């Protein structure tokens, strides 16, 4: 059976698409699935860095599309997970180096061999977006609880519908429960109310994501991280498992306690 091609997109930049792709990929591969991650952000590639695979790149997606190497040669096997592979973007080229139809072909080819093909879409709605979404069966929309990010996500959902990419599902990233409680941040219900799509998961704001990104070790592999736990659940849901949403209050109690005994809480 052919695998599923999932594009991870957001419209707005900096909301955590690449982090989500790396973590969803690692999460699915940890479940024993064969996963190919495709970095479609040609010219501004990052996924390789987040995965800690930058120094292994020899061939990239543009080489494959231009026929300079075989598909297999460009796929980099993850150093931790045997069933996870990365198709890196080219850095010295731009989005115009690839046509949507070529991307469709490439992701379809990958889907022959992999259970999941997860495409990291660049920010924006131009050529890069069209390339990344060309071969997608379904979409994961990443947003943060900010009005601007939600607005862009809404635009993206509309574009995906027009393109016939089915079943967009939502990841709300970097939620800060204390701020929501104080009424200073959009809550998940507000976001869903606007976007009217299924919720795939909520990822709490977590400093460990930043350190893990810098180290090239996706947070999903860190058993102690709450963001990692959220991504594990997201991967499980993508994989068809019905898992409950995690309670985001646990951290709240702890920080309340700390506040009571007077340890500074910066947030």
């Amino acid at each position, binding site marked *: 059976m052919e695998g599923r091609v999932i594009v991870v997109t957001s419209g707005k930049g900096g909301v955590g698409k690449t982090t989500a792709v790396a973590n969803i990929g690692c999460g699915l591969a940890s479940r024993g699935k064969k996963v190919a991650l495709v970095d479609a952000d040609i*010219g*501004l*590639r990052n996924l390789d860095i987040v995965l*800690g695979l*930058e*120094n*292994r*790149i*020899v061939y990239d997606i543009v080489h494959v599309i231009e026929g300079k190497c075989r598909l297999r040669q460009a796929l980099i096997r993850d*150093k931790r997970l045997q069933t996870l592979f990365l198709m890196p973007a080219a*850095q*010295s080229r731009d989005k115009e180096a690839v046509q949507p139809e070529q991307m469709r072909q490439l992701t379809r080819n990958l889907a022959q061999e992999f259970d999941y093909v997860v495409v990291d879409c660049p920010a924006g709605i131009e050529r890069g977006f069209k390339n990344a979404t060309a071969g997608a069966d379904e979409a994961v929309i990443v947003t943060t609880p900010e009005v601007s990010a939600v607005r862009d996500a809404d635009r993206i959902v509309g574009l995906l519908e027009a393109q016939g990419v089915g079943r967009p599902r939502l990841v709300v990233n970097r939620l800060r429960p204390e701020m929501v409680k104080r009424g200073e941040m959009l809550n998940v219900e507000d976001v869903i109310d606007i976007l009217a799509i299924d919720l795939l998961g909520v990822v709490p704001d977590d400093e460990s994501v930043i350190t893990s990104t810098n180290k090239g070790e996706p947070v999903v592999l860190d058993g102690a991280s709450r963001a990692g736990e959220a991504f594990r659940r997201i991967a499980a849901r993508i994989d068809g498992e019905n898992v409950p949403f995690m309670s985001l209050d646990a951290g709240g109690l702890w920080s309340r306690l700390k506040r009571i005994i007077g340890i500074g809480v910066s947030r």
Partner: protein
Amino acid sequence: MKTEDVIFKGTKRGLCIILPHDEDFQRLKGKLAAKLEKTSSFFAGATRAVLDIGELALSDDDVRELVSIVESFGMSVSRVAGGIGLATVAEPPVPQRAGAPVPSKPGPASERTHGDSEGNGHGRVEGEQLSGSGAAGTLLVRGTLRSGQRTSFGGNIVVLGDVNPGAEVVAGGDIVVMGALRGVAHAGAPENKSAIVVALRFMPTQLRIADVIARPPDGESKAPRSPEMARIRNEQIVIEAYSARKAEMEEEPGWKEGL
């Protein structure tokens, strides 16, 4: 550097004669001869002078004529240079200045000219894309190569700046980075195994010489304190502290595999 008059400059390596940017070849010859006339008593006997023709587009014959003028004053010209401040690199990188034509020897791209400590100054530098055709010459890149910038050249490449992660330098010959090498360097492309890579701060993302690829071990590595150099030994890329003497050694037993 554009000048009005012929300038003589004493450098450690010897005399450097810098020609003005004068499109009129006859006038240029006149200026050169006049300057030599005035100073001949002082500079006569200078050997290994460097003739810098700057950005002038001169034919081989023109250059030979200039060289013979200098030699008629009892000096010898060891090298004709395209001057300092070569290329500013964009995408795709095109060297903006041409080196000077002195009949170049056929041979591998990185063939070094012994006795000329600046090495590889011979041959016209045409910013052609890497062809592996044995094009000689050195491309000087002034400034830092940033992510996504790629410089490729059939001869050697010298970068007066850093090579950042995500940037790529591909040379048919050697690569010298007078700064931090953090990106990808590919020397001796496609198959010149005697090529070397030298950097003041040597911490590449990935290193390639000819068809051999190496990457640093996973995990944190600390920044080097002194210049280092990479080359192929026994089909493997080895990195060692840089020393001029080691860099000069062309071949060692066992290097000729695959030839």
